[in-house]
């Protein structure tokens, strides 16, 4: 038993971190929120080159996967840097397509997703939002009750999200039937793992930025970070994030739907409470759209309900029957 990242996994995180720092992701996220996709696509291409979209795809479809631990490592970095776009959705689509009995759709659609030439989005049920339907080339809609998995012909108008970098769309009905039944539960596990890792990254970034801010910000003649009330809120955020982290990587190791649901609800709650703390400790500057902190604050709220609201994830945990299941 060795429940730690190895040297290669840590190096992978560091290289993504360096690349995304250089890319200036806050400006990329702002442009994406305005519907300007060019710089976002450039970052996406570099992520694909680094192998991010190959991690969930089997070798048969030009992937290197399944490598869920590496995927979690990558999504923590994507969250830390507030990278916009249908990241989780592209992973989910990859797992859905790779899991079909008929290899045809995967052979046709997966190489473009793995190489970063195309983005995917997924509407997991009729009427659900599909993130960034306007940017994605591969739009998958699921109707588990009736119609199986379809390639949607288009998307409806873009509806703004609480997180300006997330663009909500409905998919157009109909379209090519790719499979009569789609293995949604397995894809959902990957989706929740990816959201959990992304949320953990969002929370870690919020904590780092807030610690840096309260160290330099002075009030009453001393650093705000020397006040015990401030320290204790940040200590609680640290505890929450550090206990979410092993759930995320544990879920990556087991790929158990119960573990993924537990990771999702816990990482999202930890990120969200960290966001509340970050906003409070920044004061009014944190409440402005101009200040970059807002990119993570709003994402923490949005991720909480993406791919399974807290109640849904807790139900999954309870259905697992506990330890001796």
């Amino acid at each position: 038993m060795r429940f730690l990242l190895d040297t290669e996994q840590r190096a992978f995180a560091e290289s993504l971190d360096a690349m995304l720092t250089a890319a200036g992701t806050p400006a990329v996220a702002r442009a994406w929120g305005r519907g300007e996709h060019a710089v976002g696509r450039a970052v996406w291409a570099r992520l694909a080159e680094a192998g991010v979209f190959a991690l969930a795809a089997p070798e048969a479809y030009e992937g290197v996967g399944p490598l869920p631990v590496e995927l979690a490592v990558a999504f923590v970095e994507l969250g830390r840097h507030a990278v916009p776009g249908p990241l989780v959705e592209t992973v989910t689509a990859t797992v859905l397509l790779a899991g079909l009995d008929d290899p045809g759709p995967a052979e046709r659609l997966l190489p473009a997703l793995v190489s970063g030439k195309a983005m995917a989005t997924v509407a997991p049920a009729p009427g659900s939002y599909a993130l960034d339907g306007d940017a994605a080339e591969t739009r998958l809609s699921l109707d588990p009750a009736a119609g199986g998995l379809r390639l949607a012909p288009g998307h409806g108008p873009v509806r703004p999200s609480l997180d300006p970098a997330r663009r909500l769309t409905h998919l157009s009905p109909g379209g090519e039937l790719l499979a009569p039944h789609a293995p949604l539960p397995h894809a959902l596990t990957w989706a929740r793992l990816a959201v959990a890792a992304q949320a953990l990254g969002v929370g870690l970034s919020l904590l780092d930025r807030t610690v840096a801010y309260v160290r330099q910000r002075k009030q009453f003649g001393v650093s705000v970070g020397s006040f015990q009330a401030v320290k204790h809120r940040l200590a609680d955020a640290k505890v929450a994030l550090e206990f979410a982290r092993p759930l995320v990587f544990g879920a990556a190791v087991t790929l158990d739907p119960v573990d993924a649901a537990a990771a999702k609800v816990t990482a999202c709650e930890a990120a969200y409470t960290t966001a509340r703390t970050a906003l409070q400790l920044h004061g009014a500057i944190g409440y402005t759209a101009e200040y970059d902190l807002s990119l993570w604050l709003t994402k923490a709220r949005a991720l909480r309900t993406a791919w399974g609201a807290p109640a849904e994830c807790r139900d999954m945990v309870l259905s697992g029957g506990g330890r001796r299941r």
Partner: protein
Amino acid sequence: MDLARSPADEAFRAEARAWLRAHVPSEPLPSLETEEGFAAHRAWEAELAADRWSVVHWPTAYGGRDAGLPRWLVFEEEYYAAGAPGRVGQNGVNLLAPTLFDHGTEEQRARVLPPMACGEVVWAQAWSEPEAGSDLASLTSRAVRTAGGWLLTGQKTWSSRAAFADRAFGLFRSEPGTARPHQGLTYLMFDLRAPGVTVRPIGRLDGRPAFAELFLDDVFVPDEDVIGAPGQGWRVAMSTAGNERGLTLRSPGRFLAAADRLLGLWQERGSPASARDAVADALIGARAYELFTHAAASRFLQGTPIGPEASLNKVFWSEYDIALHETALDLLGEEGEAADTGWSEGYVFSLAGPIYAGTNEIQRDIIAERLLGLPKGRR
């Protein structure tokens, strides 16, 4: 990164499980915070020790199995899953023994550890004083040099299990007037039945004498009961304080078993929606703690000592423990008020968690200053 146990670890699990199935008392023992219960728990320790299950992580020379950290975790999982009794010797095993392994002499280990392992000598911790709780450096009880040893004088308090325990260990000021408060302290072991010792039991919230105050009046301690060098007591004590906050005091097995029992209770009560989130969070919290411990153990086995990260543990498990027991009492409804159930005993015990072993306020200061790098400030 993996979570798989080796076949040898799984064989160890099977052996432990079989032994526990054959030996765990079918009826819970009386509360170990009563005289009768203390004696029953002492007998249980002797039964464990007879087959070398009382201190599996210790070297075989002192009654252990040299099992290592991963197997200790396995044993704890099986132990609590089997519903086995609480451990009366935990202050000695978890706090004094690691100190002796790190700083004691071979003679001290050979003399102190085997009777500790079988419950023949049960140890109490004598650290806190009326004016020195989490601010341990301010303690004032004295150790004064005398022929062949030391004379202890002063008052210790909140000493867990001291009402029925045999011996105690603690810090005493041996060099008054040092420049800094944590200098000039000496770490000593002493007999709770020695002349000059008065033990006054204190009832905790439920009235049971779970701790005591100790009045010391020229109590003689021979030189061989000093741990480490005289005057170096702070360093000796702090090198193992992380044990108390970290892994050993609360093993994940304990919470995994408790969360399972809570889930059972919830289902038994018709799975009320009102408690759904709290029960799910108890299951998730136990899993988080288990995995956090796996990561900490992996780091420890790679040679990274447990440092200020132990404060993350302590805040987490102490608050988790209370939340879990509150949920159980709520589920029990009216019956939750009854004081003679395992859940209520556990609830009362859990309430002390954020207070002892360094209050959670002190732990949060440590997290903020040593893990987040925030500046020191006025408390």
